[in-house]
């Protein structure tokens, strides 16, 4: 009898333990389901990336538009757009104060096209009910997953020190030089492959290779008077120390693009064989053009026994005469849309060294 009772209780206890184990599994399962669901949600949230395109806001006033790119892994939905005025002295500008301006898809002000598919570029969002002006704004785009992406209007200029880009604009005109490590090169002797021109030999004829782009929506035709202007200054710390105050300037005119080195200079003919920089498209410049410089005289001129440029050939080569640093300015003359334009680009500094290629 007691054995039966004992066994009965034992079975009850085993069943209770088993029941507890099942309850535990169920609880863990429910808990892990929550963790997994929220983990997936967090993953999607972290894969949201929205970027914006210059000039940020495409027009002032109301409504205004801006474009957004979704370079993340999921479709994003814009939940709100916050507009903050950052110009404290501009009292009359909108979106100042404790609440600024808030555009909500269900309220007023409002905006359209909140869903941005992944991979979509230049997705236009129109904000209605907020009239912005040209004072400074920060626009924060908040998504339904809890991310915030922002940009500033006016679009900040790309200053050299703060740039993350490998190439930086050096001018704000139609013609521009993309300043990077490979944008300024030269050849000498019989070289046909250019090398970087940040340090060069002095008193040696060279051909300069400069990479330029056209920001204008019309093609650019370079004039024969386009030139590089080298201004030397005294070097008190390098190989040029002791040469006195350097007063030399060198003018190097554009040459034909068939020119490879100072030994084979082709004179530049801006009528029959000009440099034509193609017009920029909606996404910016259409490629880049390498413009070569290296002639003492412009166009189809040579120089006479007095050193004056006169019509004729061959084109005389040019060099820099002192082992000192030089400031290089670019004077561009060109025709764009039938109009002659002159543009000076404050460009680069180079060092001409007596011990080239070693330039201590």
């Amino acid at each position, binding site marked *: *009898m*007691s054995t039966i*009772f*004992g066994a009965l*209780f034992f079975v*009850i*206890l085993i069943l*209770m333990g088993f029941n*507890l184990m099942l*309850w*535990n599994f169920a*609880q*863990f399962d*429910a*808990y892990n389901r*929550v*963790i997994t*669901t*929220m983990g997936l*949600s967090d993953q999607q*949230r972290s894969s949201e990336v929205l970027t914006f395109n210059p000039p940020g806001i495409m027009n002032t006033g109301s409504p205004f538009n801006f474009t957004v790119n979704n370079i993340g892994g999921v479709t994003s939905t814009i*939940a*709100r757009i*916050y507009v*903050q005025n950052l110009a*404290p002295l501009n009292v009359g500008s909108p979106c*100042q*104060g*404790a*609440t*600024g301006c*808030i555009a909500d898809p269900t309220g007023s002000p409002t905006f359209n096209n909140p869903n941005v598919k992944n991979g979509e570029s230049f997705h236009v969002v129109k904000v209605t009910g907020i009239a912005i002006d040209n004072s400074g704004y920060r626009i*924060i785009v*908040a998504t*339904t*997953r*809890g*991310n*915030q992406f922002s940009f500033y209007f006016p679009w900040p200029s790309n200053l050299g020190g703060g740039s993350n880009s490998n190439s930086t604009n050096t001018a704000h005109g139609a013609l521009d030089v993309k300043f990077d490590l490979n944008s300024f090169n030269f050849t000498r002797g019989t070289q046909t492959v250019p090398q970087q021109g940040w340090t060069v030999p002095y008193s040696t004829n060279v051909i300069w290779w400069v990479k330029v782009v056209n920001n204008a929506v019309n093609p650019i035709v370079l004039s024969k008077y386009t030139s590089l202007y080298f201004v030397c200054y005294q070097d008190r710390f390098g190989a040029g120390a002791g040469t006195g105050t350097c007063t030399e300037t060198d003018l190097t005119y554009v040459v034909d693009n068939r020119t490879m080195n100072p030994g084979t200079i082709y004179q530049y003919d801006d009528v029959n064989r000009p440099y034509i920089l193609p017009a920029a498209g909606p996404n910016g410049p259409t490629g880049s053009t390498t413009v070569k410089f290296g002639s003492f005289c412009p166009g189809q001129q040579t120089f006479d026994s007095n050193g004056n440029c006169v019509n004729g050939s061959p084109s005389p080569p040019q060099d820099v005469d002192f082992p000192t640093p030089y400031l290089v300015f670019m004077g561009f003359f060109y025709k764009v849309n039938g109009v002659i334009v002159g543009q000076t680009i404050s460009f680069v500094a180079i060092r001409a060294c007596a011990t080239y290629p070693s330039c201590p």
Partner: protein
Amino acid sequence: MARKFRILGWAEKRSRRQHRSRKAISTIMANLTMLVIVVSLSSLLFVWSISSFGAYTGGAGYWFSSRSIANQERPTVESVYFSKTGSTNNVVTIYVRNVGAVPITVASVYLNSTLYNIPQSPPLTVGVSQVQQVQLILSGQLWVKGDLQTITIATLRGTTTQTTWVP
């Protein structure tokens, strides 16, 4: 002689019966005793296990349930506006969005490690996918243009989120 045999036979029977009777009582008592012991011990064990399991399931259930809910909280700070009262930089307006799966109640806000309690009558509850404005009137500190401001939002369930903003 015959009478003598009858008496002896009766005594022998009596003696045998008495002996058998003593044996029978001992077995029952043993069984009963064991039964009582087993039942009482089993009952104790049963009561103990019931209370233990109950306590365990109660505590663990509460932990699982509270942690599950807390894990579904996702408060985010969407935007912060820094403004003034007159010429004093002492107003900070924060927009808190709930991108989680359960409603949240904002319990406190820290601005640069300074606590600002949020009144709980009525509680500042943010529904799922909703956004609420929290406005702080600073005391003992002012926001400074260009300085980094660290804002931490804490919910009643203990979830925190920290963001940094520059006025």
